[in-house]
């Protein structure tokens, strides 16, 4: 029997709310298949199975909020036969006369259907460190006082984002009925419509606050910056875009990201994670891209394998990532696997930015606005488009000298844009 547990969901995120199962008992599941959608403070995330199997039993219910590490479902291993007895009763503290399905849910129904729309600094606390603090409760967490509630009422309450614990039941033995839920929904109409947004915004702020406080507490940052002239890059981009249909046009941001990914090849000490008192260089380059949200806050999901993808593909994936981040539908790996973060202020931003590293990453690259500036060269002065690139890095792992060399490499790469296109 495979226990499918709620995996880590990014830096300092220790709980999630099940929004939806994408499978049902009896379904065959492939490794990597999305089997559930889980809501976090920042976004709704597709959660994949890390093993192949057959769904035996779904334990968590839509609307249920649970800590990382909670067993959400049981899967049969390929070839395994289902056990005769109901194994779940062993972990579920029965005794209320309810069916196991109902008994296994907790009363914590919240925030369902808010539409996931926020961000999360990435954080590669990936699956190996499941369970914040290593104390993941086994099966069902927080078995508080359970309410008698009909499945239809529970489902409706989840849809409406109403905590069933707050509803007075009018059914037999105080059971909460569908009508009770609807009545509460009616009476709460104005506030119920407002609440998810404010809740989510506040939660996201808290998540960012936790990650950034941890960063400034634990990571001794150093900063270096370099002004990079971009006339060649922009001229190349303009020429290249003139030949491309609108839908395939490249943005300067995509070229900058590509250059960072390439430059990292020579600076492994900037690409990876600081975990358990030591640095582990990452083998791949997954660029966390800081994306701001219209309602405030930001998420930095990962652009996977950014160093090896051709520029056109990277641009398409960047556009897709921005779209899905703003729509609140990200994959779990995108929230957990970034190996370094890039923040690009874009053409409405400031000249430069010195960012806060997302733990457990060890570096962050920042780009300010590309703008025309006076440029001195060979004893002469001219006006060129320039971007200020910065590096914030972890002094436990690298030194300013190497950081400065990295920025010079980045600058050199940006002088040969046609090479970056490959």
């Amino acid at each position, binding site marked *: 029997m495979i226990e499918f547990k709620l995996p880590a969901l990014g830096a300092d995120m220790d709980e999630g709310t099940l929004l939806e199962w994408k499978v049902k008992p009896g379904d065959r599941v492939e490794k990597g298949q999305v089997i559930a959608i889980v809501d976090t403070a920042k976004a709704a995330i597709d959660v994949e199975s890390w093993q192949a199997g057959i769904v035996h039993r779904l334990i968590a219910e839509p609307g249920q909020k649970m800590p990382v590490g909670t067993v959400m479902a049981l899967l049969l291993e390929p070839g395994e036969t289902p056990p005769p007895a109901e194994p779940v009763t062993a972990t579920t503290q029965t005794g209320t006369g309810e069916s196991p399905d109902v008994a296994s849910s907790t009363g914590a129904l919240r925030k369902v259907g808010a539409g996931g729309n926020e961000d999360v600094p990435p954080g590669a606390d990936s699956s190996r460190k499941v369970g914040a603090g290593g104390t993941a409760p086994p099966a069902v967490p927080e078995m508080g006082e359970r309410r008698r509630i009909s499945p239809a009422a529970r489902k409706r309450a989840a849809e409406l984002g109403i905590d069933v614990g707050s509803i007075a039941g009018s059914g037999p033995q105080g059971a909460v009925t569908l009508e009770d839920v609807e009545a509460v929904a009616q009476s709460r109409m104005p506030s119920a419509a407002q609440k998810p947004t404010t809740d989510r915004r506040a939660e996201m702020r808290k998540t960012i606050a936790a990650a950034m406080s941890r960063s400034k507490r634990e990571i001794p940052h150093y900063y270096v910056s370099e002004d990079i002239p971009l006339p060649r890059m922009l001229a190349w981009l*303009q020429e290249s875009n*003139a030949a491309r249909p*609108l*839908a395939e046009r490249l*943005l*300067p941001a995509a070229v900058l990201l590509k250059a960072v990914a390439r430059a990292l090849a020579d600076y492994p000490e900037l690409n990876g994670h600081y975990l358990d008192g030591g640095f582990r260089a990452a083998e791949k380059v997954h660029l966390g891209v800081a994306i701001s949200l*219209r309602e405030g806050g930001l998420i930095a999901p990962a652009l996977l394998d950014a160093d090896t993808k051709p520029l056109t593909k990277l641009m398409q994936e960047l*556009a897709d990532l921005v779209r899905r981040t703003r729509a609140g539908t990200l994959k779990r790996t995108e929230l957990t696997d970034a190996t370094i973060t890039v923040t690009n202020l*874009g053409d*409405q931003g400031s000249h430069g930015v010195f960012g806060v590293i997302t733990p457990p990453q060890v570096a962050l690259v920042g780009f300010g606005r590309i703008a025309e500036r006076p440029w001195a060269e060979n004893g002469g002065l001219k006006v060129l488009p320039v971007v200020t690139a910065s590096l914030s890095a972890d002094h436990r792992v690298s030194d300013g000298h190497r950081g400065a060399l990295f920025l010079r490499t980045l600058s050199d790469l940006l002088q040969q844009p046609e090479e970056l296109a490959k």
Partner: protein
Amino acid sequence: MNRNQLRDLVIATLQNIAPEVGGDTLRDDLPLRRQVDLDSMDWLNFLLGLNKRLGIEIPEKDYARLTTLAALLDYLQHELTERSAS
């Protein structure tokens, strides 16, 4: 399509990207991107939306001229007239 209809269409396209935009509060004579927070990806998506609705593909070299809503409407109107004339 008259100018008001065109303006409504442009605002509706913009609202797909920036839902908070109100057509009545937007000033036609002030830089659009000072009034609406549009990053370069938003801008590209806005142009894609206009392309879908009007069939006009604005080349990158013309971006610099399209700072205000009025300039954008002039540009689009001109393109639409050109197209119907040919």
